């Protein structure tokens, strides 16, 4: 029996379910394998253009933070990826995956069969859709390269060819596959968003990502991920998502994909259908079961509204729409709009058909539940006590400990408080992430992994509150209270202040804070 089968048509949690409900060990890595590059052996059709000349090899020298010791960085890693040249209003750019260039310290690109590396930099990055635009300052780089154009969403069963620089060799590699199916998939780079993705049976080799998937000399996708345990299944980002990204950055800023924040569930029970004024066995209409804290959605929609049509797409009773002959989750109908745009909805409310327009915007409220990139983690160290924001990235450092009773408060706070006790939600829950051993803190029982409730009586809503609560205290001790069974610890105020510099120096912490 699988007791945690996720309900279908779950708009904003699909991804979360995949990473969370299987039990906290899941955070680790189940889906985190980002494979890149489908490489398809192509029989280059005679006389056709040579897309491989537009395919770029990318080297990213990256350094990721240590989330439970946020002033430290992990060893530099050299990661390889692919990209391809496109024309944007601002000129020629290289498109690739966001995960190929994340946490970059140095980015180098190379042309087809050209030994010279060129310096490159990120211009626009969309972590939610795993796409990036890379600028290369040296104009010589683009000389002789024809930018690739985009095609439409390929049809299932049609053949696509993938170009890239996968592991196993140095030169470009091609593979061919058919389009297996098209539906919403969890985008594992961000971890908590599901968007349209195309599955292909091309042989997938871990290594590179960001390479173009080509059909009739047009780019119909960007290869980006695979799923461990699935054979002959690789995924690429379809033109819909790519065009959305490119339109988004036209104003010089990347906003991201909007989120309606609806939990839409299937409406197939005859009694429920009848109750809501629908024919008992009809095929249309999906029910809104819940709305997260997206103000516009809460204003315009309400639970038990029946979605009949979203953005012109009829909504089926299993919470799906048909998009270009593919049955996909209704979430797609909301994702076509840009941040700030409205989507027309036809719905049934209390038995009456109504038309509404739902303004859509980007939702950042669940940022810490997803994977975070490029912004070095925030922290504050005082008296050797390391305070850091609670996040999915932090939880991952707990490894096997995650799932122990001792960490259950952290899991609850991060994933459940927002839904169950929204009035008690802290904007940035703070964890005592560790203690840098020194005589001022050596006698603390609680040394790490504890969620901070109050410091010197101040409820800690965000990291700045920690700084303020410690700064403003005039008592003999700092009193730090933790969430849970009411445990607390004290720190001698003067001794901690006096020891601060020495502790920072001893442990190589260059700055006591990053706020």
């Amino acid at each position, binding site marked *: 029996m699988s007791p945690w089968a996720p309900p279908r048509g779950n708009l904003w949690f699909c991804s979360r379910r995949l990473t969370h409900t299987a039990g906290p060990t899941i955070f680790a890595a189940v889906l985190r394998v980002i494979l890149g590059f489908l490489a398809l052996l192509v029989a280059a059709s005679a006389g056709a253009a040579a897309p491989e000349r537009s395919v770029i090899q990318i080297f990213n020298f990256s350094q990721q933070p240590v989330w439970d010791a946020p002033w430290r960085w992990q060893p530099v890693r050299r990661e390889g990826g692919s990209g391809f040249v496109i024309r944007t209003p601002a000129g020629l750019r290289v498109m690739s995956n966001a995960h190929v260039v994340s946490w970059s310290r140095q980015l180098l690109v190379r042309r087809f069969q050209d030994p010279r590396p060129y310096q490159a930099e990120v211009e626009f990055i969309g972590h939610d859709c795993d796409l990036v635009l890379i600028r290369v300052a040296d104009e010589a780089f683009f000389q002789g390269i024809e930018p690739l154009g985009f095609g439409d969403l390929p049809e299932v069963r049609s053949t696509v060819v993938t170009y890239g620089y996968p592991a196993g060799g140095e030169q470009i590699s091609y593979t061919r596959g058919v389009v297996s199916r098209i539906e919403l998939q969890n985008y594992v780079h961000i971890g908590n968003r599901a968007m349209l993705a195309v599955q292909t049976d091309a042989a997938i080799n871990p290594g590179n990502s960001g390479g173009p998937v080509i059909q009739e000399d047009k780019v119909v996708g960007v290869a980006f991920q695979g799923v461990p345990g699935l054979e002959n299944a690789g995924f690429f980002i379809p033109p819909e998502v790519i065009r959305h990204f490119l339109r988004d950055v036209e104003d010089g800023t990347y906003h991201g994909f909007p989120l309606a924040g609806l939990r839409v569930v299937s409406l197939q029970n005859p009694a429920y259908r009848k109750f809501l004024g629908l024919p008992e066995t009809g095929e249309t209409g999906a029910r809104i079961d819940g709305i997260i804290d997206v103000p516009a959605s809460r204003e315009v929609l309400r639970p038990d509204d029946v979605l009949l049509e979203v953005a012109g797409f009829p909504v089926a009773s299993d919470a799906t729409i048909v998009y270009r002959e593919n049955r996909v989750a209704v979430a797609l109908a909301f994702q076509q709009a840009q941040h700030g745009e409205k989507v027309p909805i036809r719905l049934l409310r209390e038995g009456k058909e109504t038309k509404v327009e739902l303004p859509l915007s980007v939702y950042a409220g669940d940022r810490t539940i997803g994977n975070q990139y490029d912004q070095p983690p925030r922290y504050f160290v005082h008296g050797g006590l390391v305070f850091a924001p609670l996040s999915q990235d932090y939880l991952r450092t707990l490894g096997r400990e995650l799932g122990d009773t001792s960490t259950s408060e952290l899991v609850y706070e991060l994933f*459940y408080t927002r839904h169950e006790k929204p009035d008690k939600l802290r904007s940035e829950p703070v964890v005592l992430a560790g203690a840098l051993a020194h005589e001022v803190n050596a006698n603390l029982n609680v040394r790490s992994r504890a969620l901070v409730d109050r410091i010197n009586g101040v409820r800690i809503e965000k990291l700045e509150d920690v700084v303020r609560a410690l700064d403003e205290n005039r008592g003999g001790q700092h009193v730090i209270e933790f969430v849970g069974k009411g445990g607390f*610890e004290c720190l001698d105020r003067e001794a901690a202040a006096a020891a601060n510099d020495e502790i920072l120096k001893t442990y190589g912490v260059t700055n006591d804070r990053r706020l």
Partner: protein
Amino acid sequence: MIRSFINARPIRSAAGVLATLGVLLLAGLTLSPTVMAAEGNGRNPMELSVVTLEITAKEYDYFQPWNKPTRSIRKHALVNAGRELVTTAQNLADRTLVRAQKGGRGRWFNAEVKWLDYHANLAVVTVADEGFWTGLQPAPVSEVMPRLAEYEIIRWRDGNLETRRADFSKFTVGDGALSFAPRIQLELNTEISGLGWAEPVTAGGKVLGISVSKGGNVCLVAPWAFIQRILEARRQGKDSALGYFDFVWQQSLNPATLQHLKLEGDPRGAVLIDVPKTAGTDYALKKHDIILEVDGFAVDSDGDIEDPEFGHVMMEGLATRRHFAGDRIPMKILRDGKPLEIQYLLPQAKYSVDLLPMHSFDEEPEYLVAGGFLFQPLTQSYLRGWGDDWRRRAPFRLSYYAGESPTPERPALVILTQVLPDPINIGYQDIRSLVVEKINGRVVRFLADVEEALKAPKDGVHVVEFFRGDNLQRVLLDATQLEAATSRVLKRYGIPAASVIRPPRAAAAKS
């Protein structure tokens, strides 16, 4: 004969598995007539004082609560005065048959449990047949626990009494096998596998305790001193229910904390960090009190006391060391820098003090099937269906409740555990493990609430609402079809009755 263990679904622990194997070995008994060992022929006189029990008990399947698979195990019991056999309470719950055998072989006599206490993990068993007692004699026992003695563990194996050495490790205070009531336990170090089936532990020819469990190389033993006190209270007709400390404390190793709490001198005492929310006006302790002395024992900065018999052990053991529930235990505390002497009223260890009761013994699991929806109380027994490591494997949201205490608003929880597919519940078949908030507008905390609420549908539908959260919030069922659907489901899935429900009050007050 011994029944198969195949039905024994949730395996309790690695120790349990080993123990089970041990019992399987024990099962290879011959059927030859018992020959009682005569004293003085060089055989161990303990042969006359240690008997085997065979217990068949129901082991409910909480994922299909109407199922009543059984399993049989064998364990030991000690002959005590008054034709009584003393053993642990483990595996005696939901028993259907208990039999006793002496001499490690031969005839089985029907036995009867005269008394048992799950929290104390003790049971007294007797056999009506006179013939059973012929040749048996009470075991010599000792309440004094020598540390340097040569400890031996005794058990019947293939008709012979096996005696093997075990090394003394330490005395320790911990939870019981079936209870959170703290008690003193003897830790022996041994490589003998399959222990924990009430094997007597002896030294110098006297019984010093009964084995309770084994994990790794550590065998935990209930000391006779602990057992004797409870048996004695029972003999005198006194209330012998175990108590426990219902507050949460932390160690006082941090001088800054003690300074903050105005304790002068060396670090010592246990710092109170949580007192029960339901504590009445009689409750003598407050958050941030420092407990300096309990029952005459000084509490050190680890929260330990120095016990003249057992050495350095956690102060929690004093809850059961010389007292029973309902007693007042004198404590010296420091509150706001001022010393105070208080009398702490020792609460009784009951399973109902947890929001999710730890156990529910000697009663069938409750459930209610309505239109294919299976409603069950959320209990630790249910969560143990995910195995011994249920805290990791059960759905996080459910196991998280295990850390909570009941409140007047939330005295218990009911969950929709699964949906047995039927035409009435089309569209809901994948629903699992959702805590029910209301049915037809009525708040649901007990199964009886579900039963009651289902009597009052509105507009021809039943509305089931779930706890606010990251989950489905609401479903509807056709009320006019519900009864017919329930009958259909019961028949199709072979469920003997639509519900097993006990009155909520009894459920709440039950220990």
